[in-house]
């Protein structure tokens, strides 16, 4: 049965936020892939194609914006929804996320039930 499970790639530098998101997704029946930074995420995407990506915006090294741009430049990933996660709620950043063309934006601290509902909607479940 595990073959039917949808896979979600989580890109997040904060270890506790990563653990929370991964445990939440697994508890709700998803497979997860986890990457601590943008470089690792782009590397992972070469070998596997997740159904969705949860992408933290504020990361050391490559920011979520840069990672998103690189993903969008590659036609192979056209079908993958990318949801931005950010602990910054400044309006400037939210506007920038909306403009950058992410599928959606979810603020941190996460509303765990809300996030699961949103993911299921996007995956048509």
């Amino acid at each position, binding site marked *: 049965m595990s073959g039917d499970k949808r896979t979600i790639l989580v890109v997040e530098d*904060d270890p*506790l*936020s990563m653990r*929370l998101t991964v*445990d*939440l997704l697994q*508890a709700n029946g998803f497979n997860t892939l986890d990457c601590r930074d943008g470089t690792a995420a782009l590397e992972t995407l070469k070998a596997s194609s997740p159904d969705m990506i949860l992408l933290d915006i*504020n990361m050391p090294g490559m920011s979520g914006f840069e990672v998103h741009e690189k993903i969008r430049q590659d036609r192979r990933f056209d079908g993958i929804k990318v949801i931005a996660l950010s*602990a*910054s*709620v*400044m*309006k400037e950043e939210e506007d920038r996320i909306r403009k950058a063309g992410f599928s959606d934006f979810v603020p*941190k*601290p*996460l509303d*765990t*039930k809300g996030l699961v509902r949103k993911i299921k909607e996007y995956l048509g479940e």
Partner: protein
Amino acid sequence: MRDDLEIQYRELMENANSIILRMDTKGNVTYFNRFAENFFGFRQEDILGKNVIGTIVAPADLSGKDLRAMIDDLVHHPSTYMSNENENILRSGKRVWISWTNKAILDEDGRPVEVLAIGNDITKLKEAEAQILKAKEAAESANKAKSSFLANMSHELRTPLNAIIGFSELMKDGTAGPLNEKQKEYIGYVWESGKHLLSLINDILDLSKIEAGKMELELGEFDLRDLIKKSLTFVSERANKHGISLLTEIAGGVGTVRADERKVKQVVFNLLSNAMKFTPDGGKIGIEAKEDAGMVKVCVWDTGIGIEDSDKGKVFSEFEQIDSEYSRKYAGTGLGMPLSRKFIELHGGKMWFESEGKGKGTRFYFTLPFRAG
């Protein structure tokens, strides 16, 4: 007679408490009064016949402005320099600022032959001006530093809160396995406190944005009736539980408004939950909206504990909460009311309240223009 007059004029110019000089169309000094001698440190015999450039005017001022070109232009077009402020230099090398009045002296054919210049020292004024500008820039950069500090702080606080709220939420929901009653109770407190801390951070950020003049309204059209009805559903469960009846009265003229929906919702919700907080079981809470003097006037009233005269000054103060068994039971952030009033004021409305005293209930009002912005 004519000689007398000329002597009088000469006396006047010599003894005036202003710099008075004349120069020809090449910029060479032809007259230099006593005040100018004392001020610049040049004797008449040192300066007469010499050019102003190199004596009382440096080739360029400290900001790099070409004064040689300015003098050249001035002697040919004195009328455009009738009132002019520029930097000058004393014999000692000290730079000064002088406010000049320049006037062309014409020959019989009306051609300019000389310029009469009368000047007053404004160095101190200029220095004060520069200091004010510096202070203003310092204040602006401090304000910017404060804003970016708050933005960073808010981000840094949210990251650990993500773990606190998120993990306690998973435990509370049973995702991490079954809990006994006490564990459920305790983890509930962790979750509620985390949420409380989050609203505090949000409110502080909003208040500081308002103080910095950076809070912008996101104006849009929406139906105020719908907003009021939706807000009531948020408190209806708690009202039912405590036997509190909710009453609504919206007049026909109240409908679509142009305002910041999210902020108006926050205000209405805040007033309703405050009313709930201070109304004992079995009481009544109501919300009314009607047109009044070209604005929408909304009133949230309750039959609760009321506000004593001695507490009335605290209602819109930051971090002041009126102490009562009710407020202790449902602690807020202490920022809800001041923030609500500021949101309304940003729209161009007003907020106030009436209470006849202890046990007599409270009526909160706010007005909102039909079309803000």
